[in-house]
């Protein structure tokens, strides 16, 4: 499964959803197709969610809002494990990905 647009691509394969490029869509409405794609990936992947964001260079605040809400949804759903991989080379990831743990304390984060 794959969704792509201007400057970005998101692919779900072998249980991992990989983000790459630069996500700079405008507002919740434009992010809805991606939110739906993540929901579908969750259905396909069962109880374990794995995200690889290490090639996502830029994510605007509407984008991080969408990801955080997805994580909140996972916590409410319960019985789901989540692993997130990020890159120390991309300045925004260290802090913003660590904040995901506030919504899902059990989340495993790897910043390499």
């Amino acid at each position, binding site marked *: 499964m794959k969704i792509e647009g201007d400057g970005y691509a998101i692919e779900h394969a072998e249980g991992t959803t990989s983000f790459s490029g630069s996500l700079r869509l405008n507002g919740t409405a434009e992010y*809805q197709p991606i939110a739906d794609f993540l*929901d579908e990936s969750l259905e396909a992947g069962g109880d374990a969610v794995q995200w690889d964001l290490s090639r996502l260079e830029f994510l605007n*605040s509407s984008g991080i809002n969408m990801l955080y*809400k997805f994580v909140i949804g996972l916590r409410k759903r319960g019985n789901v494990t989540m692993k997130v991989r990020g890159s120390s080379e991309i*300045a*925004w990831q260290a802090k*913003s990905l660590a*904040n995901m743990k506030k*919504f899902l304390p059990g989340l495993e984060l790897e910043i390499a």
Partner: protein
Amino acid sequence: MDNELPVSFDDEDRARLERLRVLLTDGAASLDRDGALDHGRGLLELADRLVEDLDDAGLLYGSIVEHSTTLENELTETNDKITQLIEKMKRYLSDQLYRRIVGGQAEGTEGSHQRQHLSVFFSDIVGFTNITDTIEPETLSHILNRYLNEMARICGRWGGAIDKFIGDAVMVYFGDDDGLDPRQAARACVRMALEMLQSLGPLRKEWEEAGTSFPLQIRIGINSGFCTAGNFGSDERMDYTLIGGNVNVASRLEGQAPPGGILVSAATYRLVEDIVEAEPRGKIKVKGVAQPIETFEIIGHREEDRTETEALFTPEDEGFTLREIRVGEATSDVERRMYRENLEAALAALAKPRAAAKTKVAKKKASKKKASKKKASKKKAATKKTSKKTSKKSSRRR
């Protein structure tokens, strides 16, 4: 997930609250104990859920603000870096190219060429190669940069675009891009050249002090005509510059000019003959140009044009200022003539009785203002730089 906030409060919750409102208004008499407990539990569950949602909303708000702040700071840092880079770039690029890049016009494609009528100026230092062999590289770089800085300053004052520095040589052009018609461009170019010659005196002193055995002298060549301006180079490395026979003619004129002299083509001379005095210097042949080029050596300003140059003699309300004049073996005839004019003006000002001088100065100022007003209305299309100059001129008297 389509709410802006992660708070789940649906129609069922709304109905539950409505039932509570009815109960509290009508009294709890109609409610049995089990029903009241059920209702209470439901409300408690709603309250818990809302508390959790509000916690999430608070965290979400804080985390997004943090994310935005990181991005904003990164953006500011990047902007600062770009600004610094642009400033650095400015020093290495021609004015023209710099404006094109910063203004977003530079495409770097082969097709972006234009034919423009320009006045092209070349200058170089007489015997510079010999100088480079006789002094320390540090001293050389200092005095050369001092010289080039002064030339660039004068060029900027006249609104010329520095195309490039080639060692000690300077290439400048005036034309369309600066909003100058051919006549305005040629006049600004020649006036700039005269001012450059006049400014060499104090620089010569520095050259001597630096231990150069050759005096500072320059040659200047100017030609006016159509040139091709645009991006030339390889796919990897482009340069915005001028090419064409008329550029070669300007360069050749410079090579043929006497030390301390300005040699112009007939094409340039025709555009400036009412403001300068010049002498014919015969014809020269330029490779690739079919007809021999008729040349003229500029001797100096015509009397009515003298105030156009940044004068060494500057009259003031209560007197005047005379800037340093140094004359030596290297001082060319053109320079000597300009020095003489400045000194004559200073002597004339000194000869006047104080009160009378003041009245005359005031009268002259008034008539000059009138004349420059007339001139200014004629030159409406001239550039900002030129109009600045016009207003400056109105306050200047010889």
